[in-house]
């Protein structure tokens, strides 16, 4: 599905309604990017995406779930995750139908 992002970029995958909202399945964004800036970066590009998609989605970095910093979870770890060049980030909204 994805090839390596260009130098200085990470890959971001948009699943289900994230794909409909952005009208794409995948793109490359500039790295490094602190995880805490991810939603703001996306909101700037896709106005409304935070409220409609991101706030309800889970996020993975390199195929592993990450807690979003600054969430209401209170379970965020002390060290800030920074998305690095070549990483693969995925936005996974819940799907309900069947």
């Amino acid at each position, binding site marked *: *599905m994805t090839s390596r992002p260009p130098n200085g970029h990470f890959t971001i995958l948009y699943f*289900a*309604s994230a794909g409909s909202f952005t009208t794409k399945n995948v793109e490359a964004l500039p790295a490094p990017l602190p995880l805490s800036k991810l939603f703001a970066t996306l909101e700037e590009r896709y106005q409304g995406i935070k409220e*409609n998609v991101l706030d309800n989605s889970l996020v*993975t970095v390199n195929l592993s779930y990450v807690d979003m910093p600054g969430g209401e979870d209170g379970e965020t770890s002390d060290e800030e995750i920074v998305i690095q060049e070549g990483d693969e980030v*995925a936005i*996974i909204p*819940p799907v*309900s139908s*069947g």
Partner: protein
Amino acid sequence: MQQDIAQQPEAKSVPVLVNNGQDGPNNGTSGVGGSRRLTEEEFDRYSRQMIVPGVGKDGQLRLINSRILIIGAGGLGCPAAQYVAGAGVGTIGIVDGDVVEVSNLHRQVGHVASRIGMKKVDSLITHLRGLNTLPTYVPYGFHIGPQNAAEIISQYDLVMDCTDNPATRYLISDICVLLCKPLVSAASVQKSGQLIVLNCPPTPQGRVDGKYAPCYRCCFKKPPPPSSMLSCGEAGIVGPVVGMMGVAQAGEAIKILVSALHIPSRDFSIPLERNLAQPTLLIYTYELENAVGPYSFRALKMAGRKKNCFACGENSTLTLEGIQSGTPNYEQFCSLPSPTFTLPPDERITASAYHEARSRGEIPNHLLLDTREKEHFSFGSIDGAVNIPFGRLLAKAAAIKREGGAASELLPGEVLGVTEDTPVFVVCRRGLDSQEAVEKLKELGVNNGGKRRIVDIVGGMKAWKDDVDPTFPWV
């Protein structure tokens, strides 16, 4: 055939089996195997799966002594039930209140054309009986809800969520947490599917002293706004995509029962060994655009139970009694916060008023934007309509906002006679996107400070079909 089904226990009179989830599977024998000999029929029927390493006679007996509840007899439930029945799970309960429709048949493989109009549970059980007469099939021909969910779920060892809406998904997960039942959850819409095993091995609510399996709320804390939630009826669904998820769901369920992972651990001083190695979310994406592209399965590592989870976390106040008396309110939880648009009346026109105005020549020169997806547009449209799918319109609008550029770029470029003050009418599928589109166009100044009218057609093409042209091919 129908009579045969009617002899099954009436769902509404099922005995209430109280299980607070602390005492292991309900009667102490269900699902744990036992050591009887297999009958000759069982031996012949199940030999091909029994000889697989890891199954054996013990595994098969565990399947035979187990009770699975499949909630939803649709695109996921049909293939899931088919494999669960084939594998010989002893009791299979199926919950669904719908009847078979012709639009189900491309994916719901347990139903056939001759059973259109029949209750889905009865149709599916007819199909399953044709496959394997040994299991006991229990039909529940109504929808599951806060009133009946605990009573039904308490009688099973494992639950498969094959439903189609967020409110029911949260309800089922909550009940499974409270009753200590493993939940195999799958979902699918359009071109993608998800599968995750939740609450397995089952762990009592509130235990957070180790690494335990997550529940649905640990993964998806809040539901998406309903406006962004697509149903199969609205967004469509590719048959093999949902079929694949249903089959994978059956695979996980069989695996759990064969290995007895569904039995709640009694001794939490030996915590980790019995836990599934890693909670995993399987995602399947099917790309119609790249027909020969790579297959897209992704297995994502999930976190375990969240300490502060509303349902299973340490200070959870969720109870069976609460759920039954309406707390939490699932419908409300899943219908907030919906941006309800109500444009002022002068920015709206009904489908029939628009039609009349056109016929009377009152709006000779105007632009009609149809914001449905291009597939919907391809079945038919109002004469002169120009298709700009809503997603594309929003993306363009965001780009203009971000990078600057003329707002007029939002409108189709080459329509003859369109000037700065040509009125714009916007129509969508049901009348919600079109209102948002009107807002967006105004916000970016397409209305030229009020010189140009931008008008929403109330109720979308659905209203056009209902009130103007009944032959219109609306999906």
